[in-house]
């Protein structure tokens, strides 16, 4: 009973944090991670899954992962020069181990830049057509970069020297806690408030770690898809009109959500139902 009251109190604070503009991203993150750790005290901090059977299924899939062909295809994309002779490495000198650098606040552009957006900006700067953001080849190159970046720590920054960064973070946070759709759910309704409980026979996944494993092969899609594709799906599921993939709302949402998982290792690409 005491534990439930304590969780409820933390949840109230988490929901209330939206109203308290004094809370810093670091304070938010600390509370968010503590909430999840106290809700699942028996899950080691870096592990996936509150459910032992789910964890074992995931480990089994990792032995013959369905995303493997996408990694191979992505590697070929990475290594093939553009028509002008340049490669992705010219845009990303530290590549392909770069997933941990995104999303990031770009002061010059005055916006959050995600890895997918950066890839397309690279392509367009080199005379190549941009890739679509939900389905198709973007998932190949993202899979390759994600796989090479495995083990890197999530390390999103909200730089103090540009108020635009904090504004984007706060917008993402507000989105996360705002109810939407005819069914009136916020992201927090399911993934914080009711995580690990069953909706019909599916367990609601906890929010901590939501951003570490993208792009993800989802059995439901029968293919690899992006985080923003999943955002649009979630919004449709609560009967809300989805926003544009890589539009401002979802980039800010990704910024907030990834920050909340700071410290967690990247382990993409992922395999999920």
């Amino acid at each position, binding site marked *: 009973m005491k534990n439930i009251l304590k969780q409820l109190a933390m949840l109230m604070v988490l929901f209330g944090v939206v109203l308290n503009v004094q809370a810093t991203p670091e304070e938010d993150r600390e509370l968010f991670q503590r909430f999840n750790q106290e809700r699942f005290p028996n899950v080691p901090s870096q592990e996936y899954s509150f459910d032992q059977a789910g964890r074992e299924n995931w480990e089994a899939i990792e032995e013959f992962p369905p995303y493997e062909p996408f990694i191979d295809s992505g590697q070929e994309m990475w290594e093939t020069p553009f028509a002008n002779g340049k490669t992705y490495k010219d845009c990303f000198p530290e590549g392909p181990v770069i997933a941990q650098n995104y999303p990031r606040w770009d002061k010059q552009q005055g916006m959050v830049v995600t890895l997918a957006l950066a890839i397309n900006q690279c392509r367009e700067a080199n005379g190549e057509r941009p890739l679509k953001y939900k389905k198709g080849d973007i998932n190949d190159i993202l899979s390759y970069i994600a796989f090479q970046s495995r083990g890197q720590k999530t390390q999103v920054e909200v730089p103090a020297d540009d108020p635009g960064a904090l504004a984007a973070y706060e917008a993402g946070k507000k989105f996360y806690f705002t109810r939407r759709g005819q*069914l009136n759910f916020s992201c927090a309704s399911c993934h914080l*408030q009711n995580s690990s*409980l*069953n909706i019909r*026979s599916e367990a609601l996944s906890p929010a901590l770690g939501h951003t570490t494993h993208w792009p993800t092969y989802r059995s439901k899609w029968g293919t690899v898809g992006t985080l923003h594709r999943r955002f649009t799906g979630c919004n449709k599921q609560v009967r809300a009109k989805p926003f544009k993939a890589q539009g401002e709302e979802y980039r800010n949402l990704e910024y907030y959500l990834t920050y909340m998982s700071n410290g967690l290792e990247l382990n993409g690409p992922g395999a999920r139902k």
Partner: protein
Amino acid sequence: MRKTSNYLIGISSLAVVMGSALLPTNAAAEESTTPFPEGQEIAFDRGKGNCLACHMIKDGLSPGNIAPPLIAMKSRFPDKSVLRDQIWDASVRNPETAMPLFGKHEIISEAEMDKLLEFIYSL
């Protein structure tokens, strides 16, 4: 002779199993004796009440466990209109509710709400 009868039992069991697989499946309901089948249909319809998403309900399969099981409803809601209000807009009693506002957001019609109420109240 024993082997033949075993064989026959095996074959007929297989037939029963395969036959039942061909029955029309209301994936939500086992054999139900509710006096309010219309209300039950609304409750179990994934596009309408979809109550089994969160609530355990008699004769409903694979319920979620997000919300209290729907049992002893008359003792929990002595006033039926309070139950109707709760289904209509659960956020009035609990602003942090995870229950959709079935009336206020017009997820089901008022006529459907009336039928659903009879079924839920009978649980």
